[in-house]
């Protein structure tokens, strides 16, 4: 229980140390940042075991009891998200050792990266609604700065666009929190849920739900709110693109949405219906726009929108099997999308371009990038033995069981489209004739190769999470969402 605040303390402390000493001592930033993310990964893996033993753990900040003080809650969903975030971020910091050499001010990159990480871990672990807003802003500000990290014209433009839309979204979320506070006069998530169940929810709560949906939907880049993502994600340095597309939109968007709707406000049929519609639209629009792209990273960014659509669609179906599929797809997508963005970074590192038309036949020159990206592409498009296949299969079966026949058909068709544009990426970049200009290029440093290989192995093996021994990891997260309003009883039970 004492370890819960360390998910925020470690990255914040690391950011502080790196910004203080990073410039003076050589390699200090690399070592400290990697140690920090390694500690976080080990802690988050340990948290799985804690959740197995205790179900729910509550840490009272400053010793105040929750309705008054702030608390941190560790339950199944929290530990599931923590593992996802910290696993990906650990591999990304290793990758950055080699990749970020070409940028100046590497230590500033690590400072911002650690702030981003502390914001995300904070969002996941907090049990207080305003605290969630503060961490959300920490993560958002760090991400605006990281998108503009290269300070080229396009990056600044993308960052400005992203910052404006992100700030408007944050204002919506703050407005929703203010309205909810005026109705329930408490900010603790469990307590809000308790008051709402006693007072009943009127028009105001519906309005709050809409504001939350707009705010978190913008952060998750669901389709009517997606305009910033295809600019912002490709403009950032590759490790940050991987971080933003891999875990950032899931934590700020999907996780926060789930927590607020399932555990605090309570889901109604209307909300489920809206989520299904948003999910299906995101799926289609993202896939259709991805096919037309020539820029590798832009294609991946549109693909992220499409895959987030799958997750939201699955959560909107709302049956236990569908939620299992949605969370499983979230985990899978975090792995293969960060792998693909790291691959695109590796291509850019070696050739200096991201234009598909100018690449070709790179398999001979960059074999590791080629084969890992093949695994990633096949996994995301749902080719059978790989992880992505199982999660999509579960989602589609659940949709059929729940009677969403049209949406399930659309999901299958979008999956075929996904295969099409990833095959396009593979054939343009890695197969065919080698462009004369790339005869002398080589793979990047060993650290970059290491994290790509590890991520590829994980992509292949995520299907194993469904076997009975490893299944509690996913199942405990699903149970938290299925609990719905019962969340408050569990949290208050753990306090006493």
């Amino acid at each position, binding site marked *: 229980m004492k370890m819960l605040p360390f998910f925020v303390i470690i990255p914040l402390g690391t950011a502080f140390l790196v910004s203080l000493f990073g410039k003076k001592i050589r390699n200090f930033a690399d070592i400290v940042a990697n140690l920090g993310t390694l500690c976080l990964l080990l802690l988050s893996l340990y948290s799985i075991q804690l959740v197995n033993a205790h179900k729910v753990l509550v840490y009272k900040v400053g010793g105040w009891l929750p309705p008054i003080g702030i608390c941190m809650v560790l339950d199944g969903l929290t530990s599931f998200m923590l593992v996802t975030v910290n696993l990906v971020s650990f591999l990304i910091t290793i990758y950055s050792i080699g990749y970020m050499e070409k940028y100046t001010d590497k230590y500033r990159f690590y400072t911002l990266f650690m702030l981003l990480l502390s914001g995300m871990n904070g969002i996941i672990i907090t049990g207080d609604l305003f605290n969630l*807003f503060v961490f959300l802003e920490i993560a958002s*500000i760090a991400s605006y700065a990281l998108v503009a990290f290269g300070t080229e014209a396009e990056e600044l*433009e993308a960052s400005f666009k992203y910052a404006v839309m992100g*700030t408007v979204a944050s204002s919506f979320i*703050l407005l929703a929190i*203010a309205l909810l506070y005026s109705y329930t006069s408490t900010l603790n998530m469990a307590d809000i849920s308790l008051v709402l169940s006693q007072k009943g929810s009127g028009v105001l709560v519906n309005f709050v739900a809409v504001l939350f949906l707009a705010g978190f939907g913008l952060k998750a880049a669901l389709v009517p709110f997606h305009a910033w993502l295809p600019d912002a994600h490709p403009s950032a340095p590759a490790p940050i693109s991987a971080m933003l597309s891999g875990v950032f939109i899931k934590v700020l968007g999907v996780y926060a949405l789930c927590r607020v709707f399932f555990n605090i406000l309570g889901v109604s049929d209307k909300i489920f219906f809206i989520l299904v519609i948003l999910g299906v639209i995101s799926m289609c629009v993202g896939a259709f726009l991805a096919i037309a792209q020539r820029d590798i990273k832009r294609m991946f960014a549109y693909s992220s929108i499409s895959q987030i659509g799958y997750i939201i669609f699955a959560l909107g179906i709302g049956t236990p099997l569908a939620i299992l599929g949605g969370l499983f797809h979230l985990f899978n997508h975090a792995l293969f999308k960060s792998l693909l963005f790291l691959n695109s970074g590796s291509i850019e590192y070696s050739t200096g371009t991201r234009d598909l038309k100018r690449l070709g036949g790179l398999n001979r020159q960059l074999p590791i990038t080629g084969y890992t990206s093949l695994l990633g592409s096949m996994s995301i498009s749902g080719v059978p033995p790989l992880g992505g296949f199982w999660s999509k299969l579960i989602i589609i079966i659940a949709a059929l069981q729940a009677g969403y026949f049209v949406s399930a058909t659309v999901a299958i068709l979008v999956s075929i489209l996904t295969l099409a544009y990833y095959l396009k990426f593979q054939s343009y970049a890695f197969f065919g004739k080698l462009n004369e200009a790339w005869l002398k290029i080589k793979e990047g440093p060993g650290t970059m190769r290491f994290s790509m290989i590890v991520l590829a192995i994980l992509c292949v093996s995520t299907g194993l999470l469904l076997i009975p021994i490893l299944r509690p990891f996913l199942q405990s997260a699903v149970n938290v969402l299925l609990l719905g309003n019962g969340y408050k009883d569990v949290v208050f039970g753990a306090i006493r």
Partner: protein
Amino acid sequence: MSTYLLCLVLFCIGLYCVLRKRNIIKIIIGLGIIEYAVNLFFVLIGYQIHGRAPILAKDQVISNMVDPLPQALVLTSIVIGLAVTALIVAIAIRIYEKYGTFDISKIRRLRG
């Protein structure tokens, strides 16, 4: 009730400013207006006319007090708003260096 509606009007003015204006600086000002509208609304939720600070002293009965929690929260929110504004203004200055204009209809190198 009318104060709340005025907050909403202020929020909409900010939103209009962000959506319709073409100058980057005006968009940033619009963002500031949105933030102020939300902060003002948050403070007003806990405010009472002729209310006083909830400081507990001996032999004093406080009947009409202002809720201090929204004020503490708004203080945090203002600091966050400051950080965001500073960052966006810094980005705007760099954009001006690169493009030589503040007009967003001319800053369009990203497409698709």
